[in-house]
């Protein structure tokens, strides 16, 4: 340790030159992280005195049905929004990568485009698509002689709407990532398979999937992290009202506790639990996808 500081001191001018980065990093990242640990054990309304409460915030959280409900919703949204989406992305990438498909660049851009649109705008568009009374989808259903569906009145309906937004937004993004993975797979493997008389399905299962494993791990991990941070969609969808049934996520719960109810200490505790959940899931993902490499 002493040696390290000696090294740093020796190169102090260089460290001075890169100081803008690490000073800002210390102030805006390291300090808030440490402070939030401290905050998680206090009761604080943001203006009065902080009161030490130890583990009470965590105790309250684990006994709060609203927290478990938010976690359950989160898992449901994560599965509903990501499982079909990643599968579709893989198929889309595979199809674009086929030698017979032309204008690959066009498809890449077209599929990626939803990812660069502003999230709030997307939510507002989906809100008017799925509106209970004046939604475009209900309008079409009525034209077809079917009954209107009150999308935003049932938990399942709301989850479908939010999952649809997630799919729409991230399918292209993941497809482009898969595509880059596919293009890295050496052509000679496919040629050898073709010589051996393998079918398209067999090549996909025996060559494409195993070679793509690291990329799939990356996309599953990113969507796990993203899936547990779903916030904008339910927040904007509900507007000033409380979140629609089935759409109260952990981040939304944390935001409400912190910035609407002014329980800053409690919100910090929730954010740490969320951090641990995401960390655990990432480890599980990693283990799961790396297992057969050994």
């Amino acid at each position, binding site marked *: 340790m002493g040696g390290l500081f000696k090294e740093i001191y020796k190169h102090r001018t260089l460290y*001075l*030159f*890169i*100081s*803008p980065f690490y*000073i800002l990093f210390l102030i805006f990242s390291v300090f808030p992280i440490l402070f939030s640990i401290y905050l998680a054990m206090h*009761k604080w*309304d*943001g*203006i*009065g005195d902080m009161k030490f409460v130890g583990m*009470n915030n965590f105790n*309250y959280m684990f006994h*709060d049905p*609203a927290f478990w409900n938010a976690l359950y919703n989160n898992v449901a949204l994560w599965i509903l929004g990501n499982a079909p989406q990643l599968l579709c992305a893989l198929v889309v990438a595979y199809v674009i990568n086929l030698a017979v498909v032309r204008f690959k660049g066009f498809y890449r851009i077209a599929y990626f485009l939803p990812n660069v649109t502003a999230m709030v705008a997307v939510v*507002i568009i989906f*809100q*008017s698509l799925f*509106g*209970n*009374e*004046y939604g475009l989808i209900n309008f079409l259903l009525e034209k077809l002689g079917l009954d209107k569906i*009150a999308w*935003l*009145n*049932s938990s399942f309906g709301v989850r479908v709407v939010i999952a649809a937004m997630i799919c729409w937004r991230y399918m292209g993004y993941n497809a482009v990532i898969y595509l880059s993975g596919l293009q890295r797979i050496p052509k000679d493997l496919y040629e050898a398979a073709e010589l051996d008389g393998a079918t398209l399905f067999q090549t996909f299962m025996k060559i494409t999937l195993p070679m793509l494993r690291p990329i799939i791990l990356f996309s599953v991990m990113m969507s796990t992290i993203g899936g547990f941070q779903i916030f904008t969609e339910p927040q904007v*969808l*509900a*507007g*000033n*009202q*409380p979140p629609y*049934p089935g759409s109260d996520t952990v981040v939304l719960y944390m935001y*409400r506790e912190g*910035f*609407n*109810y*002014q329980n800053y200490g*409690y919100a910090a505790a929730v954010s740490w639990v969320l951090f641990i959940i995401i960390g655990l899931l990432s480890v599980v993902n990693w283990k799961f996808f790396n297992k057969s490499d050994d």
Partner: protein
Amino acid sequence: MKKKVWSGIPLVLGMMLVVTACGDATPANTSAKDSAASSPNKNESASSQKVSVNMWYWNGAISDSTIDAARKKFPNIDLQAQKLPSGSDYLTKLKTTVSGGGTGPDIVAMDSWVTTMLPYKDKFVNLYDQGAKDIQSQYLDWKWRMAATADNKYLIGLPIDVAPVVMYYRQDMFEKAGVPSTPEAIKSQVKTWDDYFNLSKKVKDATGSQILSIVDVFRNMIGQNSEGYFTTEGKYIGDQAHIKDAWDRAVKAYQSGLTYANTSDTEKNAAMNNNKISSFIGASWAVGDLMGAAPDTKGKWRIAYPAGGIGNQGGSFFGVLKSSKNPKEAYEVIKFLVNPDNLVAGYKEFGNYPSTPEIYSKPDMVNKNEFFGDQDLSSVFAEAAKDVKIAPADPRDDVVASTLTEEIGLVDTQKKDPEKAWKDAQDKIKRQLSR
């Protein structure tokens, strides 16, 4: 050559750091107009001993022309006005600044949550010490007392505007249904919520239109109460008769088919534009919302004294922080900003209804609006702004209100049993309050 370029980079970065460090002393994000106006003054300030006063407000709290007028009126004060995002972000920023103890602004705009700041009154200048007693008589008493302690010895804010609650209704529909359809007739004949429900029933039968959702009806009734969710001592009373009555009556209105579906604002706006809504109770600021939401119904709306009694939903204040180095100058500025003439200007610009009753009858205040068939809106607001009873506010009100409205909303959207919803809401609230 290459070496020279590289050694330049840390220099540039270092300079950026210096610049950002300086930024803390002066407001970093004044709007372009403000900084343009104030930058020449900054150079002078050293020589002519200009006093600098910083102000935080949000768009719509006070008009820009009034701020410019204040700059002209006080040439010795360098007024730096910072427009911040409104809503809960503003409150969070204010709270962290006040509790952080650093140099914050001198003047802060505060919304109707001003009452929840009273426990921290020592962070604010007592405006009575600055002579606020002299101007007290100009303002609505109930509004004034929102920013004063119970013993009326400490005042943390001067009133800007009020948001009286009125009834917005479709005159054509009311006429068709043969119910009272002039503002005067409605005021004299539709006094209670029951009268209003009976009237709405007739309007519904004649035109097929409804009033706004179960949640809106519940909220409006709560807004007219003189008791809130907590007593002034902080005891929870949100499970008692005055709240339960409102709950039951909102449920009854829903069950008799009077209320429109509990849905998003976009859908409600579409419903209003499509003649599905015959009336609703709303604050004075709903004028702008309604005109934007339902352009096709122009000329058909009117406003009247609200059924069930008057209420207030919003309206802001200006206070001075204790950390201010120039409280005297800051007080002079806010006193000027909220004087009756400037509040009239704000009313004309944004529709913020002034909190100074003496000007309500002035010809300047007449506000004939085509959207409302050239009705003079001001005279209705003036009646509705007087003698409002303000329920004691508590920082925990938001927890209670959002839990109750969420559960009563489920009575419509998920056909939840109203009694079960009431019980669930109370259980949730008690859990929240237990920690």
